[in-house]
């Protein structure tokens, strides 16, 4: 690039100097004029700036002017681009209990923590705090967190709530029309995003003696439940009351006597057309091991557990990216063995590149409390184990959920 106004020492003739002085004068007048028209930043530029701001700043800037308020509250383009930017920084919500006293009786408080990174944790205000209720995070997706309120020692579902912790907006979801049981163990809950319909959905599978009776789906956009009728329910027994949603498909582990895979099969329910799809074979694992499905780096993963060792499997082939998700093969990522006999480790969730475990110290039946430590196992790292910052002294963590701050509303 040869910028001719920069002249340089080589050919700065008198004419050049005069031109430059004239330019300077002209620039400053143009600047002075422009400064008075400063408000003229085009709206799409304003939206682009907004999309890079934290939610807290945006909520504050709603009171700048009517235009700004409208943009921040209703501009769906802003919500989408903001989400895209904030998705680059993955946060984590960790739920658990902390023992606050032992004498005269054991007392616990529920805690919900937001991890901004491996060493910064802050308490999230539990907006729905109620003395009688306990909370269970059902799922977290694009900044929306679905929470079940439980009563009677966590056996009864009182309500389900949709919550955006960043905007502090929350709402109760309506009841499904024809649910028979509110028991926690006869309902499988899962929350996720339906890409094809740009909709957030809560799936509630009713179980009777572990078999599926009904499937209800709550859609945020229609603000109502509907029963998934156009699909055959498998008569297989569901093995766990948790499902995992990956790329718009809910996966459930079920029993299958005929399966050569330890008597297990994986059922899949598509959130878009609300139908069950082909069953999937889990990887071939050892006879006595336990397993658990989870979502890790946008892929379906399965952990084979044979204390104290864990084997991590991922669906598809990690080396080929696109389309691998639909393949039926599994890739073994890592076998990991915890080398601390005085502690037990329980899986709580996946975050960033790792699987998070909470550490329980074996100090006798009632004292086997968590040390307040979260451990991350990262299969693709050279040094697969990292201990996160200690949170609390006697905390027991029950779940960890990948989370991003967003403007996504709990209403449609």
């Amino acid at each position, binding site marked *: *690039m*040869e*910028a*001719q*106004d*920069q002249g340089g020492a080589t050919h700065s003739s008198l004419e050049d100097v005069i031109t430059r002085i004239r*330019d300077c004068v*002209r*620039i400053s007048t*143009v*600047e002075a004029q*422009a*400064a008075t028209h*400063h*408000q003229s*930043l*085009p709206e799409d*530029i*304003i939206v*682009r*700036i*907004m999309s*890079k*701001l*934290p939610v*807290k*700043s945006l*909520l*504050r*800037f*709603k*009171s*700048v*002017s*009517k*235009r*700004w*308020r409208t943009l921040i509250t209703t501009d769906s383009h802003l919500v989408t681009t903001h989400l895209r930017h904030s998705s680059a920084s993955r946060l984590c919500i960790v739920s658990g209990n902390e023992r606050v006293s032992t004498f005269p009786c054991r007392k616990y408080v529920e805690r919900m923590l937001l991890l901004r990174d491996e060493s910064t944790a802050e308490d999230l205000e539990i907006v729905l705090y109620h003395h009688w209720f306990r909370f269970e995070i059902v799922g977290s997706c694009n900044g929306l967190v679905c929470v079940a309120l439980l009563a009677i020692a966590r056996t009864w579902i009182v309500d389900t709530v949709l919550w955006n912790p960043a905007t*502090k907006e929350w709402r109760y979801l309506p009841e499904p029309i024809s649910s028979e049981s509110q028991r926690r163990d006869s309902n499988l809950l899962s929350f996720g995003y339906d890409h094809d319909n740009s909709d957030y959905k809560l799936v509630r599978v009713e179980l009777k003696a572990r078999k599926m009776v009904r499937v209800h789906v709550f859609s945020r956009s229609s603000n109502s439940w509907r029963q998934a009728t156009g699909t055959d329910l498998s008569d297989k027994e569901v093995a766990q009351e948790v499902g995992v949603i990956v790329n718009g498909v809910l996966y459930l582990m079920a029993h299958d006597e005929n399966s050569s895979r330890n008597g297990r099969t994986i059922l899949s329910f598509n959130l878009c057309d609300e139908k069950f799809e082909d069953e999937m074979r889990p990887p071939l694992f050892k006879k006595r091991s336990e397993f658990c499905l989870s979502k890790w780096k946008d892929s379906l993963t399965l952990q084979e557990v044979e204390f104290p060792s864990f084997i991590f499997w991922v669906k598809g082939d990690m080396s080929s990216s696109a389309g691998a998700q639909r393949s039926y093969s599994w890739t073994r990522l890592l076998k990991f063995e915890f080398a601390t006999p005085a502690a037990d480790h329980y899986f709580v969730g996946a975050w960033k590149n790792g699987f998070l475990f909470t550490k329980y110290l074996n100090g006798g039946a009632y004292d086997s409390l968590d040390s307040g430590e979260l451990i991350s196992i990262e299969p693709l790292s050279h040094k697969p184990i990292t201990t996160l910052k200690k949170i609390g002294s006697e905390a027991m963590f029950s779940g960890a959920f990948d989370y991003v701050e967003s403007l996504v509303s709990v209403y449609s």
Partner: protein
Amino acid sequence: MSSSSTTTTTTRLLMLKASDGVTFEVEEAVATKLGAINNMVEEEGSEDLICLPNVNGKFLGMVLEWCKKHANNNTNSDKGNDEVNKWWDKEFVMDLDQNTLYHLLMAADYLSGTELVDLLTEKVASMIRGKKVEEIRETFKIKSDFLPGQEEEIRKKNSWAFE
């Protein structure tokens, strides 16, 4: 990295003329990092002089400086490239004052320099994220058009965002 990879792509030169008559001679590969110029080159083909009546020379110079750095860095197929670009971007926006930033942003937007707009909006966002409402109004020259009481109401709803 032998020299063979960076030889004979088009070294055609374009002449860009700013609103104040200042002209810049730029390699096509550099100038076409700007979407608007890329379009003009594709449409008009042979035209070598491009007039840009909406951009002042000072800011056009800065935009082209940015393009040049990025075009150069992209020709080296080094892995550390991204790092270099990032480092350079940081330097580029570090000492920009509000007024320069505004004009640069307008110029980059007019010239459809998407990546540069991204960089500059990021900079603006980092400058204003902690600001008070009044400061935002001042920065963006906005007058509050709320009815009396209306603003209070909005503030009350999200009072925690003002802490």
